[in-house]
């Protein structure tokens, strides 16, 4: 191959790393990136790939730093598309670290860029992420507004998995806002979209959210049946977070039915799984459920301790309002 005008031949030292990142082989990607020559390591793409792999490997601080460097380099060369992607990864890092104000600013900038570049899929993801930030900050009306935008945009690009996630998130916020019928409707939409996506993991999570909405509407028998199906799906498809969530809701239905021993056993199983996968939000939710259970059976000291543990978990991810709510109980 000969390039015209004396242009250098096309060589791409990052190809293997890129293939590994997009193929979900993040440790391989890390190894490939470490093999890159020094001049390649200063390129924004190297930094962005490092950030993406790092985020998936749970190294949020490193990921965020690399993403910010990539973003600044893309910005200085006027590459809006690269800037948008790097901004999104940087914001995701901030979100995981509980720095919600930074996360919100970053996702908002990425959304503005996606809007300008007419990148609907990225716009939908950013809107969904902005909804999550607002939810953590207990700004439910704003969260729902972003989820509405996210679901409309995911539907526009026929991203069924994204649509399922958007409706799942809407279900949770609507239920917590006391909009139970709307929550049930959103849950049904989440389950239908998950079916369309053919994604068992998100299907299980959507069924769990549906079961909690059903429980809030007072139909405990149906809620339990739905949560059991959610648990089966999560177990079958190795989704520990889904498992923990389904167990927490089964604990809630057992508590509401007066089966306190069973509720305790289920709630503790949920907590164990959430702690094992180190997911603060799920740990907080499991502790909150245990706190509610201990309160109902009169174990006040245990309840206080569970609520304190929940508050600490929520604080770690910046969900300050929720943490305060736990401390006040």
């Amino acid at each position, binding site marked *: 191959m000969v390039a015209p005008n004396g242009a250098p031949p096309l060589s791409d030292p990052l190809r293997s790393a890129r293939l590994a990142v997009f193929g979900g082989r993040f440790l391989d990607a890390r190894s490939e990136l470490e093999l890159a020559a020094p001049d390649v390591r200063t390129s924004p793409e190297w930094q962005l790939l490092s950030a993406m792999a790092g985020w998936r490997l749970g190294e949020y601080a490193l990921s965020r730093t690399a993403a910010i460097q990539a973003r600044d380099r893309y910005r200085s060369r006027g590459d809006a598309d690269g800037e948008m992607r790097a901004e999104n990864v940087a914001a995701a890092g901030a979100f995981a670290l509980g720095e919600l104000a930074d996360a919100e600013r970053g996702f908002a900038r990425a959304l503005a860029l996606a809007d300008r570049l007419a990148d609907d899929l*990225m716009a939908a993801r950013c809107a969904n992420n902005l909804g999550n930030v607002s939810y953590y900050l207990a700004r439910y009306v704003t969260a729902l*507004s972003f989820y509405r*935008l996210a679901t*409309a945009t995911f539907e526009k*690009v026929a991203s069924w998995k994204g649509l399922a996630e958007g409706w799942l998130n809407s279900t949770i916020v609507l239920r917590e806002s006391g909009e139970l019928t709307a929550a049930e409707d959103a849950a049904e939409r989440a389950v239908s979209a998950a079916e369309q*996506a053919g994604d068992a993991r998100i299907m299980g999570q959507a069924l769990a959210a549906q079961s909690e909405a059903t429980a*809030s509407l007072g139909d405990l028998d149906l809620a339990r049946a*739905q949560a059991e199906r959610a648990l089966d799906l999560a177990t079958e498809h190795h989704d520990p977070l889904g498992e923990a969530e389904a167990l927490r809701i089964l604990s809630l239905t057992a508590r509401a039915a007066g089966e306190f021993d069973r509720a305790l056993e289920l709630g503790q199983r949920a907590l164990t799984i959430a702690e094992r996968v180190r997911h603060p939000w799920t740990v907080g939710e499991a502790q*909150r459920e245990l706190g509610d259970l201990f309160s109902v059976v009169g174990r006040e000291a245990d309840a206080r301790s569970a609520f304190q543990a929940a508050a600490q978990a929520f604080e770690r991810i910046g969900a300050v309002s929720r943490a305060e709510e736990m401390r006040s109980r």
Partner: protein
Amino acid sequence: MDQRPTLSVIELSDSFHSAWSDLASELDIECVQLAAEGAPSPTSVAVIVAAGGEEDRALDLLPSLTWGGDFPMYLVGAQSSHRFAVEALRRGAADYFSLPDDLNLLRRTLGARVEAARERSRPSGPAQPVADPFVQLRGDSDALRATVEQAERVLPHADVTVLIRGETGTGKELLARALHEGGPRANGPFVAVNCAAIPSELMESELFGHERGAFTDAHASKPGLFEEAHSGTLFLDEIGHLPLPLQGKLLRALEDRRIRRVGGTQSRNIDVRIVAATHVELTAAVERGEFREDLYYRINVVDLLLPPLRERSDDVETLAIHFAGALAQRYSLPVPEITEPLRAALRGYPWPGNVRELRHAVERALLLSEPGTLDPEQLIPRRRTPAAAEGGPIPFPASLQEIQQAAVRAALVQHGDNKSAAARQLGISRARLQRLIDRGED
């Protein structure tokens, strides 16, 4: 799209020849060479005109390269002049990439196209007009058939506004979606918004979008649902809940076909068909001065009435059988038999919540009955109104204090004794809730 996405390449020179197959391989798509006079495959995500060293020839060729289909044409060359890039865009290219500098940008641009194509190719994408768009409405009763026949006559008209009337749960959104998917706008988006679910002070920014800083909580610029629905259909459910001042803005948007984001200075063209729905009589709202008459006539060009389930009792069994089959598949259960006692139970209930209630009832019975059966006993929903169930019976007439205490008890039970959530639901401060609790314990 069932087949693998493709990258179509028109090579005017052999510069960068191996780059196209490499790029395609990275993106896991096919690379297809195309003659200048050829037509790209419908599976194309983009057409690349590869013109390294032949840029001037490419500029001459570009205006003649026109195809139908939803794929952009990118010119790729070695010149890095802005003037050349502008000329390429002027002559019909969607973008110009100068290699090797823009290789990563080209890769990401194509990656985004491939990703979007793959998302669209997931099962049952809504983009193609469907053979029978009304199939989801299910039923053969005279009442439903009359509505569907009317709707079929509207199908070919892309711009006509439609007002769908019907009780809650009758399938208004399904009918709106059918009008979209069976009509000329099927390739555009369908955006549904429930006006009753949005706080009135947020409604304008939801519909028209806002710029950052337009109001206190506007931390980010945000496109509105009108923009999202561009080239498609915007379904405004429960349009009767639209605040009066916004009704005027909606009317203006429909007439001018332009919108402006809240806090924005720039108007944007919009091409959106409106389908509205209501479960209340809008004429009465017009008489009361709660709904603008001019907007009412603007949206009510075609009026479709969806009958309640009690007026289409012949359809109840058909719908129940359909839901039983679909839900059995969802829950990996055997499809249940529809027995005579079940038929009697289905006929004997008025279904005030219409199709939505019937669907929930079938789901409940399916999950709580022996596999392969639907126990009629489990069919009728046993939902408690939280206040009645958890608050206990309230004497009638009750004192204000008794009503308050029942509401407090119900909210606390509903939220697992979470006082903040209970207070939020009751619309009072947490401190006031605590005072009410303390008073109840006196």
